[in-house]
C-alpha cells in the first residue's frame, strides 16, 4: 500500500498571548478578551480583544485624521509605493501567513500556501499599479477618494478577503477601518504588523477585532463614507437597512447557491475535477461554491459513480499536513448548521452519500458529502449550506438547465461544462450570475471583477470595476 506518511508543515507562525486593536499605527492594550482557536484541534491560539463602540470610534477618528492630513494628500504614485511594499513583505512572509491562516481557519495548508496567500498578494500588486492611473478608472479626470471605508470581512478567506477590500481602497486614496471575523482574526493582526513593517503612515489601516456588535458599531458609525461587507445574506440585509438613508456608499458580497451544470458532451474527467473543486475546495466555505450539481439525466449514473470514486481519494485530516485535501469546519456553530441542513435535506427525500474517512477526535469535521436525487424544492437545493455538501439535481434539456440554475434567490456564480462552444455562450447569456466559469471553476484574478446579482449582493470587487466602489467623480 502506498500510504502517504505524515508531511506536516513546520509551525512557522507564532502568535502573541493576546492582541489589542490596531489603531493609529499602534496596538492598543488588550482588553475585553475572548479566545480564538484552531478549529482542527480546539486549541486556543491567542486572546483577542472584543471591540466596543468606543474602540470603533477611536479607529474611525484615526482613519479620518489620516485621510485628511496624510494619506489623502499623497500622490497616487506615492500610495502605489506603499502598496507595492506591502505586497513584497507579504511575499517574504508568505509561508508564515499561510501557516497562521491554516491554524486559525482550519483550511488545508496546500490551499493557504498555493491559493489564499498568493491571491491576496496578487491583489496588492494589481491595485498598486492602479494608484497613479485613476484617471483611467472610468470616472473622468481626477476622481476622488470617498474618505473612511468601513470593511467587514468573513472567516472563509480571512486574508484574501482583507486584500480584496484593502488593496483597492488604499489605491483609490481611502483610509480604512477593517473588522475581521471573530473566529479568524489572526491573519489580519499579522497584516497589521506588516503595515508597521512597511511604515504605512499611522491611521491609514486600522483593525478592530470583535463580534457582530463591533461590526454593527463600525458600519453604523456616522463618520464612515463607505461600507464594504462580505458575508451572509442575513447580515447583509441588516447592514443594508442600517445604512439606508445615509450617504454611505455600499458594496455587499453575500451568499450563493451556484449551479455547476454538466452536459453529456462535457470533458467528463475534467468536469469531475471541476465539481470536486467547486464544492470541496475550502470545505465548501465559499460563497461562490458550486453547491448544486446540475447533471444531464442521460449521464447521471455514470457521472455520480465517477464522482464517488474521486471523492474516495479526498484526504480529510490535519490541515497542516501538506497532503490534506479537506480540512476542518471553521466553527462548532457552522458544523451544527451544516448537519441541520443536511438532515433536513435527507428528510425531504435526498440520498446522502459520504466516503468513509477517519474523523479526528477533536475539532469540527464534516466528511465530504453528496445528496443525490434532490428536487428543486428540497432545502439543500435552496439554502446556502456553506459546507462540503453537494446537492445533485438532474435536467434533460439546456432550457431546463437554465430554468433550474436560475431558480434561486441568489446569483453569484455558475459553471457550464460542455465541449460545444456555441451552447456554452448561449447558456452563459441566459444565466443570472455575476461570475460564470466554463469548463473550469473557482478561478480568481485581480483583473477580473467579482460580485453577484439578486440576494448575492451588489457592487464588484476586482478589476477596474472594483475601484469604482472606492471612488467618486472629480469636481
Amino acid at each position, binding site marked *: *500500500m*502506498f*500510504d*502517504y*506518511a*505524515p*508531511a506536516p508543515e513546520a509551525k512557522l507562525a507564532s502568535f502573541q498571548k493576546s492582541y489589542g486593536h490596531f489603531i493609529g499605527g499602534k496596538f492598543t492594550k488588550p482588553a475585553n478578551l475572548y479566545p480564538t482557536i484552531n478549529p482542527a484541534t480546539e486549541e486556543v491560539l491567542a486572546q483577542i480583544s472584543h471591540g466596543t463602540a468606543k474602540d470603533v470610534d477611536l479607529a474611525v477618528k484615526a482613519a479620518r485624521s489620516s485621510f485628511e492630513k496624510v494619506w489623502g494628500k499623497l500622490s497616487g504614485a506615492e500610495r502605489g509605493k506603499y502598496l507595492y511594499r506591502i505586497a513584497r513583505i507579504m511575499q517574504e512572509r508568505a509561508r508564515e501567513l499561510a501557516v497562521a491562516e491554516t491554524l486559525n481557519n482550519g483550511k488545508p495548508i*496546500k490551499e493557504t500556501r*498555493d491559493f489564499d496567500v498568493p491571491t491576496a498578494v496578487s491583489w496588492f500588486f494589481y491595485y498598486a499599479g492602479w494608484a497613479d492611473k485613476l484617471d483611467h478608472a472610468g470616472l473622468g479626470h481626477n476622481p476622488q477618494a470617498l474618505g473612511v471605508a468601513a470593511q467587514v470581512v468573513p472567516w472563509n478567506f480571512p486574508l484574501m478577503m482583507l486584500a480584496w477590500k484593502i488593496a483597492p481602497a488604499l489605491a483609490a486614496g481611502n483610509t480604512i477601518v477593517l473588522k475581521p471575523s471573530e473566529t479568524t482574526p489572526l491573519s489580519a493582526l499579522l497584516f497589521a504588523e506588516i503595515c508597521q513593517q512597511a511604515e504605512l503612515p499611522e491611521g491609514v489601516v486600522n483593525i478592530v477585532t470583535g463580534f457582530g456588535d463591533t461590526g454593527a458599531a463600525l458600519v453604523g458609525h456616522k463618520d464612515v463614507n463607505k461600507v464594504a461587507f462580505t458575508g451572509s445574506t442575513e447580515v447583509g440585509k441588516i447592514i443594508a437597512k442600517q445604512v439606508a438613508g445615509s450617504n454611505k456608499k455600499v458594496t455587499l458580497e453575500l451568499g450563493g447557491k451556484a449551479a455547476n451544470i454538466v452536459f453529456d*458532451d*462535457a*470533458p*467528463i*474527467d*475534467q468536469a469531475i*475535477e*471541476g465539481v470536486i473543486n467547486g464544492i470541496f475546495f475550502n470545505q465548501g466555505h465559499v460563497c461562490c461554491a458550486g453547491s448544486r450539481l446540475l447533471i444531464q439525466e442521460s449521464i447521471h449514473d455514470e457521472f455520480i459513480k465517477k464522482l464517488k470514486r474521486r471523492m474516495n*481519494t479526498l484526504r480529510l485530516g490535519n490541515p497542516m499536513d*501538506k*497532503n490534506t485535501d479537506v480540512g476542518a469546519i471553521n466553527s462548532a456553530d457552522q458544523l451544527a448548521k451544516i448537519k441541520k441542513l443536511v438532515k433536513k435535506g435527507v428528510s425531504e427525500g435526498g440520498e446522502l452519500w459520504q466516503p468513509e474517512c477517519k474523523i479526528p477526535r477533536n475539532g469540527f469535521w464534516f466528511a465530504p458529502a453528496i445528496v443525490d436525487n434532490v428536487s428543486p424544492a428540497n432545502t439543500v437545493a435552496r439554502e446556502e449550506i456553506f459546507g462540503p455538501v453537494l446537492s445533485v439535481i438532474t435536467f434533460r434539456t439546456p432550457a431546463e438547465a437554465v430554468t433550474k440554475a436560475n431558480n434561486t434567490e441568489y446569483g453569484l456564480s455558475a459553471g457550464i461544462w460542455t*465541449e460545444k462552444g456555441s451552447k456554452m455562450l448561449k447558456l452563459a447569456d441566459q444565466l443570472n450570475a455575476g461570475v460564470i466559469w466554463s*469548463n*473550469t471553476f473557482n478561478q480568481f484574478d485581480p483583473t477580473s471583477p467579482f460580485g453577484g446579482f439578486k440576494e448575492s449582493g451588489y457592487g464588484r470587487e476586482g478589476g477596474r470595476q472594483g475601484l469604482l466602489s472606492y471612488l467618486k467623480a472629480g469636481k
Partner: protein
Amino acid sequence: MQAEEIVGSRLTNQSLSRWLHSLPGVDKVGLEARAASLATRSIKTTSKVWGLDMAIKMMDLTTLEGMDTPQRVRSLCQKAMTPDMDDPECPTPAAICVYGDMVPHAKAALGKSKIHVAAVATAFPSGRASMKVKLQDTKDAVAFGADEIDMVIDRGAFLSGNYLEVFKQIQAVKQACQRPKGKPAHLKVILETGELQTYDNIRRASYLAMLAGADFIKTSTGKVTVNATLPITLLMLEAVRDWFDQTGELIGVKPAGGIRTAKDALRYLVVVKETAGERWLTPELFRFGASSLLNDVLMQRKKLLTKTYLGPDYVSVD
C-alpha cells in the same frame, strides 16, 4: 471481450472512427491543472522508501542507441541484477529494454534472473516500414527469447484517420508475439504521444490500442521532442481505468522518456494511485521506461537508508 462487441458493430474504419470520436473530450487546461495539483503531494519517510523501491521494480532499464554493443548491453544487465553493490536487499528493475538484435546478449547476461528482456520492434522508432518487415522484426525478437515487445503504432495512418489500419497492425503484431511453445511475449504499444499532439488523439489512440489487444499502452519512444509527461500519463491511466470498468481487462501503462529523477518517479506513482488506484501500483501494470532514472533513485534510496547523500560517485554508471 471481442472488439466488435465493444464497438457495437462490425469493424470498419467508419465504425471505429465513430466509436473513437464518441469518447468524451479532454479539456487541456483542466487535465494539466489536475496533474500539477497531484505533483504537489509531499511524499516523505516511509512512503518515500516504499515509492523508491517500487519505482525500481517498475523500471524498464533501457538502452536504445545506434551505438549499442553486446558489451554495453551486458554491462546494463549486470547493473540491473545488482543495482546497489552495497545492498543485496535492493530491488531489481522489471526488465531490460533493448533493440531486437541485442536480445540474445541480454538473455545470456541475465541468465536465470527474473528480469525480463523487452525488445523494441516494428521499425522502431518511426514505424515506417512495410508490414512484412515490421512483423519479421517482431518475430526475430520473439524467437530470440524476448519476454516483452514494445511496438510503435503507425502514426501516419492514425493521423490520416485510417484507424482500421492501425488496429490491424497492432493485431498482427500481437499475433507475432505468440510462441509455438510457452508464453507469448507481452505486448506494449507505443503511441508516440509527442507526435499525436492533442490529448483527444492520445485518448483515442489509447482506446484503439486496448481494443486491438495491447497488454500495455506506452507513451513514447524517447526519440522525439516531447516524451512522457505527467498529464499524458494521467490521461492514459484514466483510459485504462475506464477500460477496466467496461471490459474487466487490466491494461498497463508505461511512460517513457524524460523521467530522470526520483522526485519525478514519485510524482508518477502518486498519479497512478489517485487516478487508476492502488491496483495499478505493481510492475505488472505500471512501468517506467528510463535509463538515467535508476541512479537518481538509488542515490535517494541510499540517502534515506544512510541519512547521508553520497553523490554519484557511490553508484555505478551502467
